[in-house]
């Protein structure tokens, strides 16, 4: 088992190298650089730009170096000093910007993941065991509606309802009076009050998808002979279902972790913008628009790393859950 983990981590090194190359290439692909877009916006506002000053700026930022030198500078900074570079737009180190957003992003991500599991698991089991009953049809309908409604519409609807009926200031993670305040019990309660909207919005489609997957998997497993074996032992009905077929039908749940992590960062950008959430998504979008290359590149790299970590975690969990994987 330990060998397997070490092997997997070693395999990640060449993948990460490839990832960093791709991330760097993506941010270099669009024509021009940060200085070009800065000049464009300065000219738009009527300012006069001195070509010599532009050249000096390029020199400072190192845009005139060959591309591989730029890449080397960037990656060695990250590897040797943990320095992700400097954001031109925000005039702050990239690392600082990212970590600032990471806490809230992770909190929302993990909370939504837990929400997805907590809702999908019991409903999926119920739907599979009571297949073709009124309850199953009801949840199937709800599930499909959840899949079909775009996230941002759901977000707008929920925001309207919570404003109209709870009188809550919606958007963001905190009420205005708590944003800059230090952590306190009041701030925490306020956070919970705000958190439920993004969690539901982000979680709905994932929940619906997982219910379908679990229902299909479990329906197959329920008719396997080992279920009858367990019944014939004298195990009560609900224990039979939970201990044997559910355990095997859980595999897709665990495999999902791999793509849930990066999905939660990049996939919910629109929702985050609509809800004005201080997560990484809107920041990434902004940096891509303004060609803030070190910030964008770092984000892309970070998402790649998260995908890899997510895959590793889900593979390890799968191996724990299913011995057939462990031994092959």
């Amino acid at each position, binding site marked *: 088992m330990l060998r397997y983990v070490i092997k997997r981590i070693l395999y990640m090194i060449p993948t990460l190298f490839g990832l960093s190359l791709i991330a760097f290439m993506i941010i270099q692909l669009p024509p021009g650089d940060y200085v070009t877009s800065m000049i464009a916006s300065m000219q738009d506002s009527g300012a006069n730009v001195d070509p010599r000053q532009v050249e000096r700026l390029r020199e400072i930022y190192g845009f005139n170096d060959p591309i591989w030198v730029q890449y080397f500078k960037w990656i060695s900074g990250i590897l040797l000093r943990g320095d992700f570079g400097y954001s031109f737009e925000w005039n702050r180190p990239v690392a600082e910007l990212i970590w600032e957003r990471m806490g809230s992003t992770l909190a929302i991500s993990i909370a939504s993941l837990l929400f997805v599991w907590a809702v999908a698991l019991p409903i999926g089991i119920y739907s599979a065991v009571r297949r073709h009953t009124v309850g199953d049809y009801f949840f199937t309908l709800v599930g499909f509606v959840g899949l079909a409604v775009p996230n941002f519409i759901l977000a707008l609807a929920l925001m309207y309802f919570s404003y109209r009926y709870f009188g809550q200031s919606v958007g963001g993670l905190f009420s205005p009076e708590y944003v800059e305040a230090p952590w306190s019990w009041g701030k925490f309660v306020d956070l919970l009050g705000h958190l439920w909207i993004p969690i539901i919005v982000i979680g709905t489609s994932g929940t619906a998808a997982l219910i379908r997957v679990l229902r299909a998997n479990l329906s197959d497993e329920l008719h*396997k*002979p*080992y279920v*009858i*074996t*367990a*019944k*014939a*032992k*004298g*195990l*009560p*009905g609900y224990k039979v279902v939970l201990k*044997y077929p559910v*355990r*095997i039908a859980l595999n897709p749940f665990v495999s999902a972790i791999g793509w849930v992590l990066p999905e939660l960062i990049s996939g919910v950008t629109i929702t985050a913008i609509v809800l004005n959430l201080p997560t990484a998504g809107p920041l990434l979008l902004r940096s891509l628009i303004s060609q803030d290359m070190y910030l964008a590149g770092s984000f892309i790299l970070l998402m790649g790393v998260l995908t890899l970590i997510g895959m590793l975690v889900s593979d390890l969990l799968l191996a724990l*859950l*299913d*011995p*057939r994987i462990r*031994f092959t």
Partner: protein
Amino acid sequence: MLTSPEMTARTADLDEDVVLEVQDLSLDFRLRTEVLHAARNVNLKLRRGKTLCLVGESGSGKSVTARALMHIIDRNGAIAGGRILLKDQKGDIDIATLDERGKELLSIRGGRIGLIFQEPMSSLSPVHTIGSQIIEAVRLHSRMNKSEARERTIDLLRQVEIPNPDKMVDRYTFEFSGGMRQRAMIAMALASDPDILIADEPTTALDVTTQAEILDLIKRLQESRSMAMLLITHDMGVVAEVADEVAVMHFGRIVEFGSVDEIFYTPKHAYTQRLLDSTVKLEQNRRAATRVETPVGQEIILSARNLTKVYGATKGWLGGKSFALKAVDDVSFDLRAGENLGIVGESGSGKTTLGRMLLRTVEPTSGDVTFFGQEAPVEVTGLSKRGLRDFHRQVRLVFQDPFASLNPRMTVRDIVGDPLVVASTLSGKALDDRVAELLELVGLDPAMRERYPHAFSGGQRQRIGIARALALDPRIIIADEATAALDVSIRAQILDLLLSIQKRLDLSFIFISHDISVVRYFCDRVAVMHRGKLVELGTAEQICTAPREAYTKSLISAVPNPDPRNKRMMHRTRFRA
């Protein structure tokens, strides 16, 4: 069915031995459009220390009845009537009326009645250790703590003769062979010393030698614990070897009930006679009777020389070690024109790989196959793709599973005509006529050619598969376990059909099977394979009656003999290698 006075007379004096009595049990299943009466007025009695065999063909309702005894019924089914009386010190318990969730029923399941069933591959959970599954069964019915239950489990595994039980207890099912899993399953069924053991086709999926060992084990455990056993099987050979009493089931009814001797020597019901006839028939060599002349000195049509197939043995990407498996090891034989050559062996002996290599759907690692057709001899191993296509026109394959080998979305006409379309020999009216002719040849009504495969039974589907194989007038047919998925009576019909077709067309057969009786019935010569090697090659008579090699002897003696007065399996020769 027996009239009730007769039955009461027979059993009155033995009533205290009865541990379970089934009275007029009927089971109904709601299907989409109708109600299926899976069992109707079934009467059975299980006696302490005795074995009752429930025999019948697939779909006769045997398994459903057996599961109903533990009140395990699918959600769309229900007990429509009758009683299942379990004898108890405090009086009889009627299992049919017990609450599905009640404690009483749960303590009977596994506590008083143990169940073993067919699929050793899937009847245990793949993600729990063998030990944890048995320990669970032990603890459900006793007040043991975990370590006591573990000791008990190890002891049970020892009783079912699993080597190193203290280590095997922590292994997973996929680390066990089929026979070992079935042993573990038996250990689980015995976990709380049940009075009754229900064994639902416990050996059907196993090789003959493993089957003999498992039956032997069950029989010994049953005797030492004086359990009552209900053994469900379709194999009359197994019945003759282990049964005390026999109930014959047909379309949900018990058509005949009696001692094993009565059933085999004075069967009363027509269905029982038919079942016995088709079993006993397979004990002879039909081929000897229908053969035109002895194939001695006839021309050779296909010859294999030193065929070897090695799997694995490639180096891993990071230099990881992998082992080589010799699936087929240096096999040579000749097939003569008009001859039926049988290849027998246990699962994993390489017989299927050998068949595939003859067709070159699996590439041999080394060795040659030569085909002597109308023209010059063809070296099959050196053929180009186009040459191989011509070769495949002359050598056809019939598959094992009649359900999986026919495309469910094609009509029978399209299925049978497909080889002709692919070879673009016929089209239009001529194609249609040829398909009708082929269907008639295999005993099907040509009017059925517009229908889809799902409308046909297993035997009929296998006939369609044979018609497809015959479409291009082949010289050789390779039949890989072609009758393994069929019931006994259908099996004999299909074999007779193949023999009659062979008489009319100039055909040779290579018949791959694990079933020795089928090979004996059908083949002129038999090749015995063991661990990739061809152990013995001889005439069917000689292999079945006077085998020379030790392995062949053990294989032949493990085949159950359908004669209760002459039990063979229990006195079998054992092969150790």
